[in-house]
């Protein structure tokens, strides 16, 4: 239940973010293992390098903020009426990679326990 809620919140918030650009196509791919998960988001809206850097910075905060993640992280994915807040996601995940794919924006989220190693995943081989 905990894992389902957590994944649902993260997917909801990031979906909210990607839908703000009104894409014609949005693909979400989830791969779960015992100690972690990998979620990929693709759309058909390429972003500028500046936008990519801003997204990267929001999803990969410089410091861990457990006090904010545990308390305010609950708001992630709960409110689709207003602008998405990527920092709510960034505090709760292990790592995020952000780039422009062939068609548009691609965001990969890596999440899991402390033992989780994102190096064990390769997106191409898993989806």
């Amino acid at each position, binding site marked *: 239940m905990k894992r389902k809620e957590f994944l649902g919140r993260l997917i909801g918030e990031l979906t909210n973010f990607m839908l703000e650009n009104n894409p014609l196509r949005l693909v979400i791919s989830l791969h779960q293992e015992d100690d972690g998960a990998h979620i990929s988001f693709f759309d058909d809206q390429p972003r500028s390098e500046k936008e990519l850097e801003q997204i990267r910075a929001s999803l990969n905060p410089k410091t861990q*903020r*457990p006090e*904010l993640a*545990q*308390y305010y992280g*609950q708001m992630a994915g*709960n409110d689709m009426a207003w602008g998405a807040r990527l920092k709510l996601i960034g505090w709760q995940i292990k790592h995020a990679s952000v780039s422009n794919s062939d068609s548009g924006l691609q965001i990969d989220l890596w999440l899991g326990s402390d033992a989780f190693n994102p190096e064990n995943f390769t997106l191409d081989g898993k989806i």
Partner: protein
Amino acid sequence: MERTEKSLYTIMLIFIIGLAVMGLALDGPTQTLKGFLHLQVRGARLINDFTQAGAGSAMFNAALVGLIGLIIVFFATISLSGPTIAAIFTMVGFGFFGKTPLNALPIIGGVWIAARLAHKTLGSYSLIALFGTALGPVVTFIMFEMGLPLSLSIPLGLFSGLVAGFILPGVARSMLQLHQGYNLYNTGFSCGFIGLFLSGLLIASNKMEPITIIWNTANESALVLFIPILSLFLILSALIIDGFSHIRETIQALFKLQNLSGRLPTDLFDAGTAGSALINMALLGLVSSLYVALVKAPFNGPVIGGILTVMGFGGFGKTLKNIWPVVAGVVLATLVFGKQLSDPGPILAALFCTTLAPIAGQFGIVAGIVAGFIHLFMVETTAVWHGGLDLYNNGFAGGLTASLIMAMLQWYKTNRPKEDFQV
């Protein structure tokens, strides 16, 4: 620990130790300690101005309450930044009218037990633990106001504090969903919700006493000067942290902060520079003091507590730009309903209504004024509901106001035809 965080620890320690020393110097060590002990063994429900028992004792008590907060942040190994500084300033502020080390610690203990059961660290729940001390009056009410023998009331008070703290994390996280982060004092909203049930229980068992207001009207010069001196200290600290040669960047960052909505969780120390956030806090303190002086309200415990809370949240969501419309709404409501701006209710509402600053920050001046207007008449009602057991009564009223406004705005936003699929 980074250099900036070390500097922030130094600033907080100077602030807390300075306050304690000022307290001891003001009333003399013996009288201060006597007064401090007296504050521990009396009721602390709203509105209980501790400066009535001596400004020095109140200052010393506030400093110790703040020190507890700082120690928890240090040992929980979480960042001393916007949210935690807001929590510590709020604790110090309410140390002037309701919080004591005795009534704060059981609540923190309860949150710690909840964290252990959820397999989390206290650090993860630290903000709830620190802000949750708003329920401290529950402990002292049961210990010293219910008329029970001390052998029974003390363990019962401690146990009640633990229980209140234990249920707080669950409630606090749920209450966030109601207002979506537009009420900065979310823990106050949650404590008020819990307070409703506790008050109901006490009323059912004929143990609830009506609320009384202890309000010191003497303007002691130490209390009048306290906030301006603290604000100047913060400005000086800001310039040292950011570097005197970077004043231009600090000012630019300060202007950038003014454009943020302030919606939870906005850490202004992260969004700008540490110096710009400290100057923002200082400016809020100076402006608040000016307002209190202009309306000729006394600089007593609750008012100082209110200003310190505004200043603390100057690192966690409040800016000069997003607070003024809400304060204007409270002032307008005060005048419309024929009240005095310097009366206890309106002056505290004018300071604490800034909990709704994110509404003005996100939706504009009119929304902020409307929120402030509603807040005034709500806050004068809600204290009775929870019997003054929730010290953050404005957080409770603010939560209700924000929830109402957000429900309406959300309904409007989600029903706009132009965002629907075309027929």
